[in-house]
């Protein structure tokens, strides 16, 4: 049982759209107070649909959900008082100034005019918008709009925050600053449910996360737990561009028989294989591939990242709009070795 300590409880949530798309397909999870819980998945995985259902903006097809202990059907109004929400698409009034936008949100959340003004100034300061506070939001840059939108979600100091891809489209500096803000908020006792398509973000921020693909949760746990499931290190062998299926199979069988190695996974023109200690086994591995006559275009090894977790559970690499920085990878070019 999830007990009394869950802030969000979702059981068998399903959303089927009018055109028959099963955007969310039997999803269950809990979020505990004080954690940053993340939904990691590619575009169209069902992240936004789930979040819009939980913030009472979208009706669900079936399943149960409680937010802050309030039933989604019976007490949507109570849910709205305790949550803050910043959607994937920014919701600001560009005809108003940044400050006016914040004051309006404050009033809608029941603050007096005076309290709303005070809170607006506080948030403008925190999000570095004080200089631009009396400018119309139409003149704001993308990053500023995103920050203003996020500030709006915080006017009423909600104990529970829903953030739908909060850093998509942000430059690296702003993204880093936002991460710091979110970590500070968590330290201050807030609970955050966020969605992201960035592995690095999920790894860095989330205390627990669920990988979601095609509307289903494929696996969930803390980033450390998840990375442990892909074993220790992963060696990735890139084959030459012209390698055919036979060569891929040859590479797979050569690697599979290697002592201490796990099950190899083939994708594109590469084969990935988990090994317990890549540094130790690398030279033996290269020898084995040489003996079997496997051509090597490139050989890399990585300590596990969520990339590998995603690959393991979904059978494919996650596609994102921007490249994800490689963590600790040692690059070993073996080009020409077999010639």
């Amino acid at each position, binding site marked *: *049982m*999830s*007990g*009394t*300590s*869950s*802030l969000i*409880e979702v059981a068998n949530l399903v959303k089927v759209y009018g055109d028959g798309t099963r955007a969310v397909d039997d999803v269950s999870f809990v979020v505990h*107070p004080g954690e940053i819980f993340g939904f990691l998945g590619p575009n169209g995985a069902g992240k936004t649909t789930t979040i819009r259902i939980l*913030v*009472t*903006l979208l*009706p669900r097809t079936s399943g149960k959900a*409680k937010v*802050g*202990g*309030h039933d989604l059907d019976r007490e949507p*109004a*109570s849910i*709205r*008082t*305790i*949550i803050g*929400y910043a*959607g994937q*698409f*920014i*919701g*600001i*009034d*560009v*005809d*108003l100034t940044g400050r*006016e936008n914040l004051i*309006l*949100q404050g*009033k*809608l*959340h*029941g*603050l*007096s005019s005076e*309290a709303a003004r005070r*809170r607006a100034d*506080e948030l403008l300061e*925190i999000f570095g918008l004080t200089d631009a506070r009396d400018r*119309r939001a139409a003149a704001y840059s993308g990053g500023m709009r995103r920050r203003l939108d996020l500030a*709006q979600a*915080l006017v009423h*100091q909600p*104990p*529970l925050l829903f953030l739908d891809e909060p850093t998509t489209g942000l430059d690296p500096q702003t993204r880093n600053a936002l991460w710091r*803000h979110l970590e*500070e*908020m968590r*330290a*201050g*006792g*807030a*609970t955050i449910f966020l969605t992201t398509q960035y592995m690095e973000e999920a790894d860095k921020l989330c205390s627990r996360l669920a990988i979601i693909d095609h509307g289903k949760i494929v696996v969930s746990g803390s980033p450390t737990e998840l990375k442990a499931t892909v074993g220790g290190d992963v060696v990735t062998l890139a084959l030459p561009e012209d390698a055919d299926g036979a060569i891929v199979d040859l590479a797979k069988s050569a690697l599979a028989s290697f002592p201490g190695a796990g099950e190899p996974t083939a994708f594109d023109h590469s084969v990935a294989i988990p090994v317990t200690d890549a540094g130790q086994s690398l030279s033996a591995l290269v020898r084995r591939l040489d003996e079997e006559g496997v051509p090597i275009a490139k050989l890399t090894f990585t300590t596990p990242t969520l990339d590998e977790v995603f690959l393991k559970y979904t059978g494919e690499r996650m596609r994102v709009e921007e490249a994800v920085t490689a963590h600790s990878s040692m690059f070993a070019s073996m080009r020409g070795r077999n010639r």
Partner: protein
Amino acid sequence: MAKSIDVREAQAAPKNQMAGDGRQPTDRSEPHRSSAARLVSESLAIYGRNLKKLVRIPMMLFFSLFQPMLWLLLFTQIFKKLGQFPQFQQQGYSSYLMFFAPSVLTMTVLTSAFQSGMGMVADLEQGMLDKFLISPIHRSSVLVGKVLADASRMVMQGTLVLVVAVLMGARPKTGVAGVLVMLFTAACFGIVWAGLSNIVALRTKNSEMTMMIGILLTFPLLFMSTAMMPSGLLPGWLKTVGKFNPVTYVINTTRDFMNFGYSWMEFGKAIGVIVLVGAFTLTGATRAFKKATS
């Protein structure tokens, strides 16, 4: 299943500066105000926002007045001689301007009404509607705030039209008090007509479509009413059609107040028609709003 967690406890949890200096939720102005009092203050907050948008871009206010003003200035010139024909004079109008100014007033609110729907589409597209719906307000506050702002816009625009008419030489028979009744009637009609615009807006979620349908509806309604010609001079079939056209009643009332005096009989008829039309358009708009927001 789990028991509900104590939310107040979660809210009162220590907060850092991000979450707000550990301020208690009691900072809320009056947490236990009645539902009606909250409805009023929420509606006023949204009204204030809509009004701010309106005055923030004064050009919009004037652009939307461009067409009615053109009509007022040009039509009164084109048909100036008509106002001197005995047949026209027999209808009781001292000039075409006196006859036509109330028509322009009505046309102004019709045009303004269709801006209402476009504003709704903009709120949908900009994610503002989501922001309203996610906050713990009565959903009707969104509509009430919008209706109030629409009415304010219509009164502002209508006033400008009548001021120009007066500058051109029109002298309303009923004076300032009568002009207020004229503006009130026109704005009431504008609001129920804005309901129609919002139905289109919420169903199509497309501002071009909302504008097109608005224009398509406005002109036939104006031409098939007594807007251009006194009813006594219209061909029989148009006179009959005009009887079923709500625009006729609004024009007749405002025109009577302009030319003849306090004709409460016509005013009563106009209000009756407005209520009847409103029963359809405003309930339809509310229903479309509920559908679009759930």
